[in-house]
């Protein structure tokens, strides 16, 4: 089997060769290189194919673009020149129908231009020398033909008169047309021949490209397959080796030879396998060594599953004090007490082992000579592949001595637990190793308070915790414990509790420190009482007597002390309160209150009675003042009433005087008015006199004027008499003239007319003179009447003047009387004013007196009221106002 494995793990010659070639290249690199090579070939093949296509495309393109197009142009040129000839003939045939010629001429022109365009288009192609020459020829021939056409057209109906003649003329250019046709045919034939050549080129290129591509594809295929084979083999062979090695290791063989063939991933895999094999080998050796070690340290014995001893090591025999020969093949029960052998527990012990369960712990066993042994360790069933134990192995250590020490230790613990003192023990690591019952109770009671500062504090988990769980000053306490030489103490407030620990070091017989014993005290109550006492003394000192020490939870000396202090404060407080109450009511006016002196002793009693005396004396003084105040009040009331009467009388006097003064004022005004009126009347009378005197003078002048008028009237009457006379004379003269005219006959006729006219004028003058005379007479009469009347009015005016003089005198007298009256009244006025002033002064004095008596009344009232506040006996305080009203 081993040989077989060895064969399969070897690499074949081919593989070694492959490994030599590619072994140092990583698989990923290998794959990448292969793919790259194949892809490169593929790329090359594609490039060649594309190049072949390109060549073909160029050949085809050239053909289509040049040769075929040139052939097309050439054949089009041939067709167009034929068209031109046709339209030319049509024109000639229609010579006698000029309206048809135009159409053909137009077509001819179009063909002509089209042909030139074709030639130009052909020239733009990539042409050979021959082609170019052919095109030149075509162009030249066409030029000749076109010029000929123009020449013939110019001669029509000049020298060429019939269609035959014209046609003959055109024959001259037929040669040029034929040359053109030849040239175009030539060109066409050459171009077609070239196109044929291109076809052959295409076929050759296609064949060449195909061969190249096929070759390359073949090469790529072969290379690809080769790479594939090499890579696959280079990976699978080492993997097979790795598989074989893994199988061998699984089979428990750790000495497999592993070739370090390559540095690729499979090489790494084999390397790792080698390392794994080495590690497994080491761990196996390790396990074996350890087992041997256990055998040296511990008592080891092997039993059959039914409890018969199979073997035991030297340690086992030494501990039990037996020889192997005496115990082999005997049952396990030889090592247990006789009374245990048949117990259910012992039988269960072996049943468990037979079921495959490990039994561990401390076991009591019996050595040679009934020697008691305590063994610690385990009985371990070793299971077969079917899961059933085929043997039981025990690994045991002798712990008899430790066991005894532990028992002793427990006894100490029990004793400590029963102490009243609170004891906690810590080891050198500052771990709490013991808490006695008293300490547990104390800490349990304080636990809720302690948790305020130490939230994690838990009495039940105290054992095994570090000492820091019980304190807020862990660092300090630890340092103190570490340096501890003798007794020391530590006190600290935690969560409102005050805990004190008295610490002592524990030292063994060799002087080594084993730990620390802490005796703990809950000093909370003590400390609290101290603080309360301090507080109450401070409060009393500050005058606060309300506070007392709480007695709840206090016991013994704390309770007694607290009660005594409370009583002391109470006594002082009672007296202080009584005094305060007395002062309070006295302040409100009640002087009847007294302090109870019964039950008070010494200074307190004397203080009470002294205050009572003071109050009584004050009450006496108040009573006397009260009576005096009432008397004063009554007197003031009387004065006040007298003043009021006087005041009212003075006021009425003052008002009478005021009325008198105003009457005098009115009278003065009236008299003044009278005097003024009298003056005015006198002045008016004087004026009237002046006017009357002026009137008299005017009347006198009027009388004189009247006399003048009268005179003048008489003179006018005389003048009128003269006029009347002249009129009469004229009348006569006119009569005479009339007569004379009558005598003169015919010659005097005109004169006679004048004379009659003069006569009538004279008559009219006479009549007018008579009328004026009468009028003058009338006015003279009226003037005389006026004169008389004026004289009368002059007399009347004189009488008026005299009367007015009398009136003036009377009025002057009245005015003088009035002035005197006015002066008299002025004197009366002054007297009244003086009287008024005096009265006013009186009135002011009376008012002052009234105000003073009023103020006095108020003060008396206030005094009375103030006194009424005080209650000096048990009767109710009287109504102050009621008493005033009575007074």
């Amino acid at each position, binding site marked *: 089997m081993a040989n077989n494995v060895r064969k399969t793990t070897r690499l074949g010659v081919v593989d070694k060769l492959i490994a030599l070639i590619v072994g140092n290249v990583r698989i990923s690199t290998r794959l990448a290189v292969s793919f790259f090579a194949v892809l490169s070939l593929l790329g090359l093949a594609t490039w060649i194919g594309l190049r072949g296509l390109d060549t073909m495309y160029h050949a085809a393109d050239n053909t289509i673009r040049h040769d075929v197009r040139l052939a097309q142009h050439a054949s089009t040129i041939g067709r167009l020149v034929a068209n031109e000839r046709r339209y030319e003939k049509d024109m000639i045939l229609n010579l006698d129908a*000029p309206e048809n010629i*135009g159409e053909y001429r137009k077509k*001819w022109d179009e063909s002509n231009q089209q042909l030139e365009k074709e030639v130009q288009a052909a020239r733009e192609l990539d042409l050979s020398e021959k082609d170019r020459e052919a095109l030149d020829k075509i162009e030249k021939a066409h030029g000749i033909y076109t010029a000929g056409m123009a020449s013939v*057209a110019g001669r*029509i109906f000049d020298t060429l008169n019939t269609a035959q003649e014209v046609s003959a003329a055109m024959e001259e250019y037929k040669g040029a047309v034929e040359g053109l046709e030849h040239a175009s045919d030539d060109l066409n034939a050459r171009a077609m021949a070239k196109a044929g050549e291109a076809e052959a080129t295409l076929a050759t290129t296609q064949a060449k490209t195909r061969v190249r591509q096929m070759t390359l594809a073949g090469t790529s295929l072969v290379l690809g397959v080769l790479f594939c084979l090499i890579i696959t083999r280079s990976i699978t062979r080492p993997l097979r080796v790795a598989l074989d090695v893994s199988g061998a290791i699984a089979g428990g063989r750790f000495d497999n030879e592993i070739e370090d063939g390559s540095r690729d991933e499979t090489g790494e895999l084999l390397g790792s396998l080698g390392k794994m094999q080495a590690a497994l080998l080491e761990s196996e050796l390790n396990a074996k060594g350890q087992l041997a070690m256990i055998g040296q340290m511990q008592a080891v014995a092997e039993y059959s599953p039914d409890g018969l001893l199979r073997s035991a090591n030297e340690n086992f025999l030494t501990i039990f004090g037996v020889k192997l020969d005496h115990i082999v093949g005997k049952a396990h029960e030889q090592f247990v007490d006789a009374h245990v052998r048949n117990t259910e527990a012992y039988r269960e012990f072996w049943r468990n082992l037979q079921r495959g369960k490990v039994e561990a712990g401390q076991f009591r066993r019996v050595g040679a000579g009934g020697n008691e042994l305590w063994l610690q360790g385990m009985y371990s069933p070793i299971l077969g592949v079917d899961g059933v134990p085929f043997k039981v192995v025990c690994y045991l250590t002798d712990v008899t001595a430790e066991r005894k020490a532990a028992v002793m230790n427990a006894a100490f613990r029990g004793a400590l637990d029963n102490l009243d003192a609170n004891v906690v023990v810590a080891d050198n690591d500052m771990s709490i190793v013991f808490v006695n019952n008293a300490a547990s109770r104390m800490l349990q009671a304080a636990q809720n308070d302690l948790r305020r500062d130490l939230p994690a504090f838990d009495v039940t988990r105290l054992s095994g915790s570090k000492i820091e769980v019980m304190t807020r000053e862990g660092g300090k306490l630890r340092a103190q414990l570490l340096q501890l030489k003798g007794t020391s103490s530590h006190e600290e407030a935690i969560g409102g509790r005050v805990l004190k620990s008295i610490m002592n070091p524990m030292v063994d017989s060799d002087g080594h420190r084993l730990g620390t014993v802490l005796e703990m005290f809950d000093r909370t109550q003590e400390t609290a009482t101290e603080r309360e006492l301090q507080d109450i003394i401070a409060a009393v000192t500050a005058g606060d007597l309300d506070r007392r020490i709480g007695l709840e939870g206090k016991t013994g000396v704390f309770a007694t002390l607290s009660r005594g202090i409370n009583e002391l404060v109470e006594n002082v407080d009672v007296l202080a309160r009584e005094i305060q109450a007395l002062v309070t009511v006295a302040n409100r006016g009640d002087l009847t209150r007294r302090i109870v002196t019964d039950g008070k002793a010494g200074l307190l009693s004397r203080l009470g009675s002294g205050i009572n005396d003071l109050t009584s004396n004050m009450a006496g003084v108040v009573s006397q003042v009260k009576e005096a105040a009432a008397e004063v009040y009554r007197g003031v009331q009387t004065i006040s009433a007298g003043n009021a009467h006087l005041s009212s009388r003075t006021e009425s006097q003052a008002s009478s005087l005021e009325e008198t003064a105003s009457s005098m004022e009115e009278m003065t005004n009236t008299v003044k008015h009278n005097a003024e009126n009298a003056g005015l009347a006198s002045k008016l009378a004087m004026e009237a006199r002046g006017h009357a005197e002026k009137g008299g003078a005017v009347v006198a002048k009027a009388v004189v004027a009247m006399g003048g008028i009268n005179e003048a009237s008489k003179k006018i009457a005389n003048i009128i008499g003269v006029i009347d006379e002249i009129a009469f004379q004229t009348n006569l003269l006119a009569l005479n003239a009339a007569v004379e005219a009558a005598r003169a006959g015919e010659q005097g006729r005109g004169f006679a007319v004048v004379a009659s006219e003069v006569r009538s004028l004279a008559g009219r003058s006479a009549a007018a003179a008579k009328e004026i005379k009468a009028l003058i007479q009338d006015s003279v009469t009226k003037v005389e009447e006026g004169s008389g009347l004026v004289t009368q009015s002059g007399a009347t005016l004189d009488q008026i003047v005299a009367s007015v003089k009398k009136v003036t005198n009377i009025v002057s007298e009245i005015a003088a009387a009035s002035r005197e009256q006015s002066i008299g009244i002025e004197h009366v006025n002054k007297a009244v004013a003086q009287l008024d002033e005096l009265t006013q002064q009186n009135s002011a004095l009376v008012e002052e007196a009234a105000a003073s008596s009023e103020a006095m009344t108020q003060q008396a009232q206030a005094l009375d009221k103030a006194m009424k506040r005080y209650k000096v006996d048990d009767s109710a305080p009287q109504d102050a106002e009621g008493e005033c009203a009575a007074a």
Partner: protein
Amino acid sequence: MKTIYRLVLAATLALSFGVAHADVVVVVSAKSPASKLTKEQVADIFLGRSTNMVPLDQAAGSPVRDEFYSKVAGQTAAQVKTTWAKLSFSGKGTPPKALGSDDEVKAQLAANPNAIAYMDKSKVDASVKTVLEP
């Protein structure tokens, strides 16, 4: 007998009247800007020497046509034809369009203000205006 006499008289009158009044006039559309033209201008237009206006011909062989060309260009119908044949052959123009009736002439004139034509004076109406009376 009396009727025949009357007819003969009327025919004589009509004939003498027609001969006497076979006056051709050159016309354009009433909308045309042209007003008066000389004989030479008209001849140039109708014989392809000027292309300023579009000439319209009457029917070939009609008396008015012959009269027009003889009066205006001093040419016979045959001469006109050869002139146009020569022009057409050398591509310098096409003969005017020959129209069948005066109404057709008027319609063409109305449609094309640049056209010019000729007709018997008696056919002239408001749609055309006379530019030359040769």
